């Protein structure tokens, strides 16, 4: 099976029913995407499929062939971190950090569809991403900062 992950085509041999999460982690060694629950309840495994945020723990790899998969590893480029990552760093969001790949992927997808979300819209869009360390106040702040950085960038 061929997948396109972070812009590169890769061949994988996992069984068709293997969740994308474990293909990424165990076969492709892209371990930035995390396992938290395995049943689409925590968001730690969030990646983008054709730009949409999905839960890779409940997405069989057979369903994603020929689609564009983006993971946390694909967010930064040679030029540096993505605006959402920069906002996260600036706001000092992470504590243990384990949920943050998923949070950043969820926030990135949110901002792509809604460049200037309100608190309520952020809450609604990111309610599926659990943070056991309780970094929620800073997540809200960081999403707003990322939004303003992106609009600054677009108008620059």
């Amino acid at each position: 099976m061929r997948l396109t992950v972070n812009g590169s085509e890769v061949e994988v041999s996992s069984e068709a029913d293997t969740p994308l999460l474990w293909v990424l982690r165990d076969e492709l060694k892209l371990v930035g995407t995390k396992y938290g629950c395995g049943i689409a309840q925590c968001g730690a495994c969030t990646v983008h499929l054709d730009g949409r945020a999905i839960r890779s723990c409940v997405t069989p790899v057979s369903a994603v062939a020929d689609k564009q998969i983006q993971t946390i590893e694909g967010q930064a480029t040679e030029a540096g971190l993505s605006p959402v990552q920069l906002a996260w760093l600036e706001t000092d969001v992470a504590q243990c950090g384990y949920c943050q790949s998923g949070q950043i992927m969820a926030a990135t997808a949110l901002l792509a569809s809604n460049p200037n979300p309100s608190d309520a819209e952020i809450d609604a869009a990111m309610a599926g991403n659990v943070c056991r360390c309780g970094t929620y106040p800073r997540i809200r702040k960081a999403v707003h900062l990322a939004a303003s950085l992106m609009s600054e960038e677009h108008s620059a």
Partner: protein
Amino acid sequence: MSEIPTAGSMSRRRFVQSGGALLFAAQCPISLSRKVHAGGNGAMMNSFVRIDPNNVITMLANNSEFGNGAYTVMSMMLAEELDVDYRSIALEAAPTTLEYYSPLFREYLTAGSVTTGSTFIPMRTAGAKARAMLLEAASRDWQLPPDELATENGTVTHAASGRSSTYGELLEVIHRFDIQPPETVALKDPSQFKILGKPARRYEGVGKVDGTAQFGIDIKLPGMLYGAIARPPVYGGSVIDFDATEALAMPGVVKAKAIRAGVVVLADSYWRAQKARAKLKINWDRGVNDGVSSEQFYADYRALADTPGMLAEDIGDALGALDAAEAKDRVVEATYEMPLLAHATLEPMNCIAHVEGDTCTIWSGTQYQSNDQEVISRFLGIPQQNVTIHRPLMGGSFGRRSSKKADYTVEAVEAAMGESVPVQIIWSREEDIRSGHYRPLFVHKLRGSVDEAGMPEAWHQVAVGQSLMQGTKHDPAYMVRGMDIYSLDGCLQEPFGVFPYGTSYQIPNHRVESHNAPKKGIVPQEWRSVAHTHTGIAYECFLDELAEKGGIDPLELRLRLTKDHARMNRVLNVLKEKSDWGKPLAPGRGRGVASRIYNISPVAQVVEVTVAENGDFSVDRVVCVLDCGFAVNPLGVEGQVEGGLAYGLGGVAFGNIDIVNGEVQQSNFHDYPVMRLPQMPKVEVYILPSDEPPTGIGEQATTPIAPAVANALFNATGRRVRRFPLSSQGFNLV
């Protein structure tokens, strides 16, 4: 949905330059994963500092990083005295040898919110001593008096001559003159601090946004096998026999074998191991806990609470005062019941073990290295020094990774025995929720009275629950006359045993009794803020009941009760002002207060709630005031307060493990709900300025939140909750 901007769609460099606010990000240090492998052949200046010829400075960290900010504060302390940027320091987890044991615990343990306080002098001293050696080296090499030299940014300089050398370059001079560490060294006066006391972003922050931070679950070793364990349906059960025919026929499956924890399937990927595990046919012996139920725990504990317990504290004559008050209708009685709670760290337990001959190496996210080493050495019958522990970052811990049983560690070792390759055991979320290690269920029975002025006059509390320390190696320090004083922390008025603080309140007649409930069904385990998770609710909610009985405002009551405790009194006075206490609220809204001391730091919170007719409620605002002594990293403290109260709020709102017929009923986040973004209140944090030595902050904010919310719900509705979680009583946090 529109396409997300791809990572290359804008120029990050321009972006960074244009955003003046992004100074930190623009200067981001190399990520931790790369730092860990930096250096290696330099000189150990002392136990904590190595300097390499290429001027890489490496800190050996003897406290674990699980979100607590240990690596940040420790690198700040070292950097302050060594005059380097804390973000330029490389870091390695220190090995499990005596020199790295905590001076406080005399173990290699990160717990009890003591990291900042217990490393404040040692890490600064390590930095200052290394600096002294470097200064001496430059002084002798250049034949200049040391007081003409300065250090800055990893360099020794002489202003007048313009000479300068990096620390790395001076290593050769240190060797040449055989310069030894000084016996003593002067530390900077706080007025000279450039780093300490200033807000600092997380040391390992970059790796935590770019996905490179390495947690235990992420480690891949050559040839490593993944293991999934089928565990008994009842904690403590065991395997009678099993049939793995079907499992072994599945792709990638290498082996299935019985270990003490259950049956482990080894495979070449975790998913394959998990999938094959589901095909095992196992005959279980359900063991001694078959039939245990949490409802029975409540019933048994309530019955025990009606009988006299071991006497922990008896100030004045509480029983006499209560009898006298009875006739005057000044007595209140209540029983508070707190359920079992799972920790539910987002990174589930995992451990890699490699057993080779009489040595064992593990890669494990752990709070408790020395214990892991002891347990493994006992289990394998090998010397302790033959057990090597590599400690990666942890995806949360909250006490779970300090297991005295080292359960998830030693089972990995057992699974790896007889294998030629390393074995990684990963727990599923279901195993995590059903693991059997919980904040123990507690029942507190309280009787109290108020005097003529309405102030608390007598207090009688009986605490019943399974002991954390009984029968463990901590028995000698924490079991006093048979009582687990760790489990009583937060309800004793006076300092007791190893706890140098009481409640901060003064009630003239104060009696506390304790029962150790029979040990069964579960493993009692520390849960962020430990005893306060139940003593805090019982104490602060019942105090609210006494305030109501006496007709005194609950915050005013606490101000009066703490008039002899200057630090808590100051916290409460600030809280009163910052929280707009007393300002009228709309119908359906309420305010609650609670104040606690955990590991010396006083902390108090006021919570505002809005409650709907159907019991749905939101926590709109939390104002938290605390005194943690000198705040080494105010930004980190604020984060710990937000996170700590979120953890406690989720626990009190819906945290609940039920055991029926020995089996845990919950299994994952759908039936063991945890805090989510929409439920998170607005939080205001006020850190009181202080020159006192730094004290704890990691668990402090967890202590008042639960009772403060319950008290706010009472204030809004007139309804007291005495059995938790709140969701079991019709109050649903939305």
